[in-house]
């Protein structure tokens, strides 16, 4: 396949940045999207140009590090995949592909397509944990009976990999899907109930403080989320927040 890429290039956080056109030929439909960018970068390095900076780590859809807004969608046009799992067979010969960084005030661009998502870490620090005794006599978690239904939903919420596609996709740059997944994975389990009220209040406060937008319930996040995190989690967080507020 021969493709035209329109890639966002930006030297550093201060630079204004712009879209730059690149031609790339002989792209195999079996390549992953990131492999295609690797090939592009090899060519740029050979010519002595600056390679395109982009985030990645596991390249198997589990770390949440890869990002990219591809042709107007977070992680590109495929559903239920991260960019590292996106294949070039989703595109046609002769296509023009826009490749932009995730855009949000809370996710500032560091360089080219790399953005700083540490706002998510700070939200996690505000309450995305449980306090347990780790001194050696920790209780076996399986010793606590949990209804299968609750365990399944908690697990579903826990599959969030913190990639930020929900924020990038949302017209409001809202982080509600991410935060609600992190709130839900504990709210559903007995171990998480102890700190449930504090957790939701603190995490939502941090979320607002980081400059994410508000949720309009458009549902775009749920569609673009590589892990299929459901809007039900946002409703659960809204309930948890109300319960915690009137306590």
């Amino acid at each position, binding site marked *: 396949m021969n493709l035209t890429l329109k890639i966002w290039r930006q030297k550093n956080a201060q630079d204004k940045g712009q879209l730059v056109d690149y031609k790339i030929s002989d792209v195999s439909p079996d390549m992953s999207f990131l492999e295609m960018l690797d090939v592009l970068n090899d060519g740029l390095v050979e010519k002595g140009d600056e390679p395109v900076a982009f985030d990645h780590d596991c390249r198997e859809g589990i770390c949440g590090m890869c990002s990219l807004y591809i042709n107007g969608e977070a992680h590109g046009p495929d559903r239920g995949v991260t960019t590292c799992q996106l294949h070039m067979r989703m595109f046609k010969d002769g296509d023009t592909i826009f490749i932009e960084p995730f855009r949000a005030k809370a996710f500032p661009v560091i360089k080219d397509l790399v953005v700083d998502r540490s706002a998510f870490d700070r939200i996690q620090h505000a309450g995305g944990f449980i306090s347990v005794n780790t001194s050696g006599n920790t209780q076996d978690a399986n010793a606590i009976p949990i209804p299968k239904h609750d365990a399944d939903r908690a697990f579903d919420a826990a599959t969030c990999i913190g990639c930020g596609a929900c924020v990038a996709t949302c017209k409001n740059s809202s982080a509600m899907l991410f935060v609600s997944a992190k709130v839900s994975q504990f709210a559903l389990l007995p171990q998480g109930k102890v700190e449930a009220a504090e957790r939701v209040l603190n995490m939502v406060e941090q979320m607002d403080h980081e400059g994410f937008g508000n949720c309009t319930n458009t549902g775009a996040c749920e569609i673009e989320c590589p892990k299929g995190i459901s809007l039900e989690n946002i409703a659960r967080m*809204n309930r948890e927040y109300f319960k915690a507020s009137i306590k």
Partner: protein
Amino acid sequence: MAKSALLKSSIGKKYWMALTGLFLCLFLVGHLAGNLQLLFGTQLQFNEYALFMTTNPAVKILSYVTYISILFHAIDGILLTIQNKKARPIGYAKNNAGANSAWASRNMAVLGTLILIFIATHMVNFWAKMHFTTMPLQKITVEAQPGATQDFYLTSGWGQDKFIPVQSVDGENIVLDGRDFYYTKPLKVKFAEGYKDLHTITIEFFKDPKWGLAFTIFYVFSMAVLAFHLLHGFNSAFQSLGANNPKYTPAIKVFGKGFAIIVPLLFAIIPLYIHFFK
């Protein structure tokens, strides 16, 4: 521990959007029930309803809750929208939003602002007239005997009443605004303050030779805007309030879509009927 912020936090603001929005949905049902009397009721029934709506103390309290809800909903909605715009200072060169969300859900602020403009013009055209101007009163001409007619203003029935006995439906000829009306019961009428004739004002408004068609089109357009606002808003409010449950949500969604289409449609039929068929 963080203090809860039921007014200031993003989630708190959404509770208020949802509560005021759903209250306004209830208001729409009440308002529609009254308006439908323009189609299915008599002139007297409609004017009785209009008087009730402007004087009854319970309705007064409800109407203040409605004014406050509209203001709060609009201000809160605009504040949310401004915050949301600020959350993405640099937009995308290419954004395929249609792939993952409905148009209405992405344009609630535009739709809401159009509704606000409609409400403002609507209040100038009807509400302010009813509240602040001297309106024509509903008048009946009674012909007790052939040739002997007398005008009466209909009233709500307090004060000096006058009874007009009606012998038989065919024999008694009561003329009301040029149309024949038959009453089988004695008619209670009063001379002085009668019913403000909002019925006639409304009919004349939509039948105005110069502007009637434009007013009708604007009204119908605004109802379409309302339909789109509700197509997203009705169900969104339940999500905001935390009601999302695999058991009930599908039913709420179907009801919400039905509500969003049927209520504005019924509102819109009234001016269309008046303009084209009355």
